[in-house]
């Protein structure tokens, strides 16, 4: 079905079920319990999961397949965000034109940058993309925001003002981003016992778009084009001497991943109509690299997992402050309590980066294939036990 093999289809099915049931899965603790702060099933965070999932899926098409490490992908995310908000300002709050424009503009922008940066490979390519992204950031932050020509609204960030034209806006439409009248903020709350589950329109729209993106990524991975991209990573010399021009292949991969990033940026604006220059900063570019490597570069589902994990840390671990720690360790004798909190404190709250950094180091050292490799090893361990019982040796499946 859908032109996929059974294995890919089941992978797509699992991802579809997980994303559709996310409001339940991410909300395992009752609202009143002490663990409720670990719940991630609220619209804001769930939207981030799938949007950054899209960003990472696209980044992986470039980095995972061709091995070209772009350090400037946040530029496309930012361009997508600005394009979408401009559509809000000019046409009205329907998200479709904004999302469409963000894909087109970021694609063109990626084409321009790709033509220049792909003249080099390896570290030089990375540095070139980084330079372009920082230039874009500088442009967005100050140059393109002057009274005569205000494209980005600088530090404040681009947003919709009351005197914007919004040609297609009418009084019966919500005054916030919407899809043909369905507000992105519309949330259906369902209370079940001690639990409260939230079903948000914006999340479901983003989730469906992510599934489409994921599906397209699978098709690209399995296509002759995907094979050529893996050939680029494996041995460019052989590729050139096999009569293949690697440049257009890498450029196509760069543009496709730029469009994914632009789409993610457009969706960020669609759920929250404010586009700031900080989305283009190098830390944002670095974040998607971390996501992809953490989850498993070159695998299909890894980057989505990586994106989820990082966003979870960013939003959940950062909430744990000193008073929360006191409530956790209150049962300990006073001196010991203070001691434990002193040790734990640097790793939570504002120090969540420290925990993330440690996890990243552990993954890179012990699981170079990312979380996916960890999963595969565990799976093999179980299957190995079963197989040895049956008297057969375990077969190792090729990594996807």
């Amino acid at each position: 079905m859908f032109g996929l093999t059974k294995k890919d289809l089941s992978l797509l099915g699992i991802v579809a079920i997980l994303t559709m049931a996310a409001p339940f899965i991410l909300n395992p603790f009752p609202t009143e319990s002490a663990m409720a702060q670990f719940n991630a099933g609220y619209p804001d965070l769930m939207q981030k999961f799938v949007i950054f999932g899209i960003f990472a899926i696209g980044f992986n098409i470039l980095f995972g397949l061709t091995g070209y490490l772009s350090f400037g992908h946040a530029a496309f995310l930012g361009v997508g965000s600005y394009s979408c908000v401009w559509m809000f300002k000019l046409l009205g709050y329907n998200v479709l034109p904004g999302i469409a424009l963000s894909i087109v503009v970021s694609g063109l922008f990626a084409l321009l940058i790709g033509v220049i940066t792909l003249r080099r490979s390896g570290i030089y390519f990375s540095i070139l993309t980084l330079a372009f992204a920082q230039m874009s950031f500088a442009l967005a932050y100050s140059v393109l925001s002057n009274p005569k020509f205000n494209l980005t609204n600088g530090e404040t960030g681009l947003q919709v003002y009351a005197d914007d034209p919004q040609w297609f806006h009418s009084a019966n439409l919500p005054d916030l981003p919407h899809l043909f009248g369905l507000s992105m903020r519309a949330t259906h709350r369902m209370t079940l016992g001690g639990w409260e589950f939230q079903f948000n329109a914006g999340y479901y729209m983003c989730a469906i778009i992510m599934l489409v993106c994921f599906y397209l990524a699978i098709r690209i991975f399995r296509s002759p084009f995907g094979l050529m991209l893996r050939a680029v990573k494996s041995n460019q010399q052989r590729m050139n001497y096999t009569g293949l021009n690697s440049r257009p292949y890498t450029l196509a991969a760069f543009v496709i991943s730029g469009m994914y990033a632009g789409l993610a940026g457009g969706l960020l604006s669609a759920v929250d109509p404010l586009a700031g220059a900080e989305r283009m900063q190098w830390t944002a570019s670095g974040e998607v690299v971390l996501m992809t490597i953490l989850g498993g570069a070159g695998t299909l589902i890894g980057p989505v997992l990586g994106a989820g994990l990082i966003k979870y840390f960013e939003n959940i671990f950062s909430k744990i402050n000193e008073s929360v720690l006191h409530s956790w360790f209150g049962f300990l004798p006073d001196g010991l309590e203070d001691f434990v909190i002193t040790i734990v404190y640097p790793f939570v709250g504002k120090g969540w980066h420290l925990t993330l950094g440690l996890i990243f180091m552990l993954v890179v050292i012990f699981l170079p294939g990312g979380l996916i490799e960890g999963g595969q090893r565990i799976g093999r361990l179980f299957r190995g036990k079963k197989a040895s019982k049956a008297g057969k040796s375990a077969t190792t499946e090729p990594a996807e």
Partner: protein
Amino acid sequence: MGILEVKNVNKRFGGLQALGDVNLSVAENSCHAIIGPNGAGKSTLLNCLVGKLIPDTGSVMFDGQSVLGRKPYEINQMGISRVFQTPEIFGDLTVMENMMIACFAQRDGAFKMHAIGSMWKEKDIVEKAEHMLESMNLAEKRDMHTASMSRGDKRRMEIAMCLSQEPRLLLLDEPTAGMARADTNNTIDLLKKIKEERDITIAIIEHDMHVVFSLAERITVLAQGTPLVEDTPEKIKGHPKVREAYLGEAQVA
């Protein structure tokens, strides 16, 4: 008029004259060996043929067309395939995928955006690749990653990929360098078989005299960047100039 015509090619690296007035004509469907001591300019000449280097002066014509100024992939698409000294294959892909890449390159040219259909549904490519693996005795290694193959198998893989492109000229750069005697003999047999089965021209650069004299129909001896002499293997063996320049030190078997 040969399929490959090299005329008055000069190449200089700084103060070093790597190639000086090289003239070479490779006849169609022949096996032509280029031999010479270390530093004679064999590899430089080969690199000039495949577009990696551009000669300072002179011309290189393949089948009546100049190859100068063309990129390696363009020259390959003209019908020249190159086998490297150390096998250059796609190490982290499987044997079958390696083969399919070569088949796609032959069918679709230097670039084709074919990003949605599954590669396994390209029946003609899959069949051709399988057939090729079959004929090169690589079929049972189909799903193996090529990086973990033996040196001899890698060499066979590389030659198989080149052949699947149906080249008119196959360039081999010391194909048996670093191989054990048994692997060397296998490679010689393989090349002989290829020569018998196909209309293909082979140009081979080689150090190993055993390989050269078992395969070549004509031999060019290169010394200090200039062809000393070109003749049949029998004549080359006894040629005094060649003995002096090259074979003198190492007795010919």
